[in-house]
């Protein structure tokens, strides 16, 4: 919906889209900050859930409905619930914060990295990887089915490996929690 004001014309739909994008992105960043800066883990966890929801919205806006759903179900749902359980189990103690040299170092390095990453935003569009993004197909069958088709044909082996990984992880946690751990003797010096 193109709105032409003579001296200034814009696509209203596009601008709304961008505005939402900006708002959600900003929220995600703020939530991320909240995760890191909150002294109590329970707040962090809540901020993280918020962050994930924001991301899910962004995913939606970039046309990845399936991933967005997965993000909500797996991450914001299952994983974060796990986190909350653990926090409940261990008790969400606040940790004392102090500004020390270590943090200064961390901050400066992060600053450097961020600056450099930001610099990389100036690069032009990269060469596309040769993917098949058949918009017609997606339109026909929907995002989830398209991913499914991709996943079970082209990426079958990684997919199976990922499931193996999950299985191993499952076995691993059972081992960890089932058998008690005896700390080894510390070295004498």
């Amino acid at each position, binding site marked *: 919906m193109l709105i032409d004001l003579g001296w200034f014309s814009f696509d209203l739909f596009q601008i709304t889209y961008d505005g939402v994008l900006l708002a959600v992105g900003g929220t995600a960043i703020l939530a991320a900050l909240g995760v890191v800066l909150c002294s109590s883990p329970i707040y962090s966890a809540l901020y993280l859930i918020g962050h994930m929801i924001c991301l899910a919205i962004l995913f939606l806006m970039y046309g990845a409905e399936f991933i967005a759903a997965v993000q909500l179900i797996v991450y914001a749902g299952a994983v974060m619930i796990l986190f909350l359980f653990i926090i409940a189990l261990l008790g969400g103690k606040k940790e004392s914060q102090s500004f020390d040299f*270590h943090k200064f*170092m*961390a901050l400066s*390095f*992060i600053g*450097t*990295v961020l600056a*450099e*990453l930001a*610099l*990389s935003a100036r690069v032009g569009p990269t060469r596309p990887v040769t993917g098949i993004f058949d918009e017609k197909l997606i339109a026909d069958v929907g995002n989830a089915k398209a991913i499914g088709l991709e996943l079970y044909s082209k990426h079958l082996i990684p997919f199976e490996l990922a499931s193996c990984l999950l299985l191993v992880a499952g076995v691993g946690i059972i081992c960890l929690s089932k058998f008690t751990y005896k700390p080894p003797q510390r070295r004498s010096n």
Partner: protein
Amino acid sequence: MFGYGWLVLIAPLLGFLSLSCLGKRIPRSIAGYLGCATVGFAFFISLILLVHLSVLEPEERVGGAQALYTWIDSGQFHLDFAILIDPLSVFMFLIVTGVGFLIHVYSLGYMEHDPEFKRFFAYLNLFIFSMCVLVSAADFFFLIVGWALVGLASYLLIGFWRDKPSAVLAARKAFVMNVIGDVGMLVAAFMIFETFGSLSYQKVFEMAPTMFLANDMNMILITLFLLVGAFAKSAQLPLHTWLPDAMEGPTPVSALIHAATMVTAGVYLVARCHTLFELAPFTMYVIATVGIITATFAGTIAMVQTDIKRVIAYSTMSQLGYMFLAVGLGMFSFGMFHLMTHAFFKALLFLGAGSVIHSLNEEQDIRKMGGLAKAMPVTYITFLIGSLALAGFPLTSGFFSKEAIIMGAYHSEMGNILFWGLAVFTAGMTAFYTFRLFFCVFQGDLRTPDAHPHESPVTMTGPLVILGFFALAAGVLGPWVDSFLSPVFGGHAEHYQDGFLETIAVFVGLGGIMTAGLLYMVRSDKIEPIKEALAPIQEILFHKYYVDEIYDFLIVKPVKAISVFLEDMGEKKGVDFAVDQVGEQVREVSKYVSLWQSGRIRDYAVNMVAGMALVLIFVAFL
């Protein structure tokens, strides 16, 4: 020409090998005779060589080098194992094997009761072999081989009674001193090889006069280094201290090695290399000076020693000094002549002393002897002959040889009044200490009552008699020696006649004998004050001018101290420490570096991010 010459070498070698390697299989009774027989055979061959040489024209007598096999062939360095048969080597052969044979026979009696009888003869044979190698070598290399081998034999025989710590010590001292000499010779050999490109006598002696003028630096250095060897072997100052200690060995050994043969090798060397030495008058002068100083030095010490063998040992040093004086003054044949007569009378004296010691059950202190004349008539008479010869009593062999040298000390080209004066003075001293010894041992009363002196068996007295004969009569051989050796030395040595000086010398000698008689035969109270007045001097002389102590302080102790120091500072605190420190420091540094590995995950994360930042910088900007 002398294709059978090697028999002289091989006989004693076979004796040595069979006695040492088949030790147990050879019965004791045969061992001694075997040892004697090999040397006797060698002497026989030497006699044949002598006759062979005598029938040749004088010009043909020299240069008979006989290559036996090629020893080494390395680059331009080619060496044959060759033996040289010429008048000089045959002359030495005769002395070595002749006196050696007599002493072997003597040892049959002397060592009769020793449990290691066979080992003794094995070593003696080894010595004869080595000495023959030395004198028959046709080049400097085998000269050095023989030189070191006689040193070895001397070492073995000095330390023959290996249970005695003093003998072990003396043997080691002798060997080390000799090795110093060997090294000097070695250096000389290198210089000769570098200068002449060959080590063979023949080539070197032919080339030397054409290549160098007199007193060329090269020649002086070569001869001086040769001299180190000669002085070490012949116990000249300052390398003399081993010889008196070498008397720890059995007496026949002292007679054979440390009087008659080995110690004269230095003189032989100078005579053999006379071509080189004549090109270096400076060195000749050094030889003469050291010779006469040693002669005087040793003579003074000999006057006060109380050990019968040590007196004779210092006398040997003194007589060697005379020989060096002679060859140093260019009178090579006189030197060789004195070498010969000295071999006779000194071997005689030593064997006589051995006979005395043998009969007194290993007693060597002359203050405890006396009055042996009756108990041991043969020894007595032969010892008297030996003493007279040593003292230079007119018409004995020692008179002729010594007189010629003393005359030359004044009259020869380099001779001067100082040499002559010291030589005559030493002759007087020689007469004095010889007869002091003689009177103490044989005259007067027996001073150890419980001893039962007896005459030695015939195996011991026989050689004494034979040597006594030669000590008395060998003087007449003087002109023969001179003419026999003249092809080697390229001319006759001039015999100077000077009645006045001769008379003085004779009277000085007689005076020495008289003084000894006065002091030791006539016991009068008048002598006591003189003795007391001279006590400090006697003290110094008795301690041999404290040379041993000085050497101990200046050389032995520092060497040991530096060795300990090097091990401590050089090894433990130096090299080891440096190397260990490398390890230590690495460990030390790693202690600090390992602090980086704090064990905390967050620190690792920081490091990781820092690395990431660096990589990104690299990617973005470079």
